[in-house]
């Protein structure tokens, strides 16, 4: 599986707008861990689900740009919003994910995720797509 990072010009422009709008001293929990001005695309197979509170997690087995095995850790909403994932993201399913990448170097986290099948068909309810979970 290939995991790539694509940053569009539009997202960089959006970054400037968002940075200007954000309070300088903000410690938004998601913003501290993820760069909400960027988008990342990943592919992999579902290896584990944690349907929990305060946040649920989806784990994907994938590879980095050098072909090395990595594990994507995708932060989702709390348990009440994730009932769909038990059937919608079965273990072993190949999926594509887009979302905001984690900030710390060498980590493979994503939040605000939207899932799709390999052919691009969206997975999960519309309400669960692209949300940045709050804690």
């Amino acid at each position: 599986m290939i995991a790539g990072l694509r940053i569009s010009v539009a997202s960089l422009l959006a970054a400037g707008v968002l940075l200007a709008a954000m309070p300088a001293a903000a410690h938004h929990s998601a913003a501290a861990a993820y760069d909400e001005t960027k988008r990342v695309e990943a592919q992999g197979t579902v290896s584990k689900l944690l349907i929990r509170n305060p946040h649920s997690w989806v784990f994907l087995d994938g590879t980095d740009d050098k072909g090395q095995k990595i594990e994507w850790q995708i932060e989702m909403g709390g348990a009440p919003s994730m009932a769909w994932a038990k059937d919608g993201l079965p273990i072993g399913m190949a999926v594509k994910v887009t979302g905001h990448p984690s900030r710390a170097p060498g980590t493979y986290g994503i939040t605000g995720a939207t899932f799709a099948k390999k052919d691009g068909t969206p997975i999960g309810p519309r309400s669960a797509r692209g949300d940045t979970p709050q804690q």
Partner: protein
Amino acid sequence: MSGTIRRLSPQRCLGLVVSVALLAAVHWHAPIAAQAPRAAIPDLAGVWDGTRRAHPINGPNVPWAKSLPEGAILPDGTPAGKDYVSNFPVLNERALAFQKIFDEPLSPKYDCQPSTPPALEFDPFYMEVVQWPDRVLLRYEKDDQLRTVWLDGREPTSHDYGIQGLSVGRYESNALIVETTHYVFDVTGFDDYNGIPSSQQKKVTERYWRDGEHLKATVTVEDPMFLRKPASYTMRWLAAPKGYKLQSFECDAEAARLSVQFIPPRYK
């Protein structure tokens, strides 16, 4: 004085006696007449929806906002006007210093420490109000918290310090007034999105009332250790779907702390 009485006619004497009697009667009944009628008890009981259906999700600008564009939805569900007035807390130097050194992984929520007022009320979950004669129970889905608001006139003591403090309340003008003190220090006890702590001097005053089918509350925070003046927001809840029962939260320590690895370290 006795000479004055001697000059009164029998009719005037009778009038004086009647006047004194009337004055006495008025005086006797005055305390009762001056008392306010027994405070009406508003019906606040039920399960209430505080999710995104009811108000915007909490964040750096919600419910505390320095500025808002016209039309932005406020925590009480109404649109902001053209001349929105900031409700963002005015921080003192101590609070600003804490904010400057704040390190996100310190936030107690990453270890499932429960949320507290003024954040707890606004977290996007359901909550339940139970009204008993001597207390009101506020039960939250978020973090499985239960707050007891005592209506029996008790005063908090030094034994009452705790994460949710001690709440006392009363009914007033068709509303429930809750005053909570005796909180413990919390590094994000005012707001975790902006890294604002709260001290053991935090006092939270909440006013709950019914607005038609909605439940509303104004939450006001005083904390002389960190705030230059009180700060407040007003929020609303919607009636929960019929039959809805609160879900247990059961915060999972692994799931709560997992994202900390994604935060670039600020200190070694």
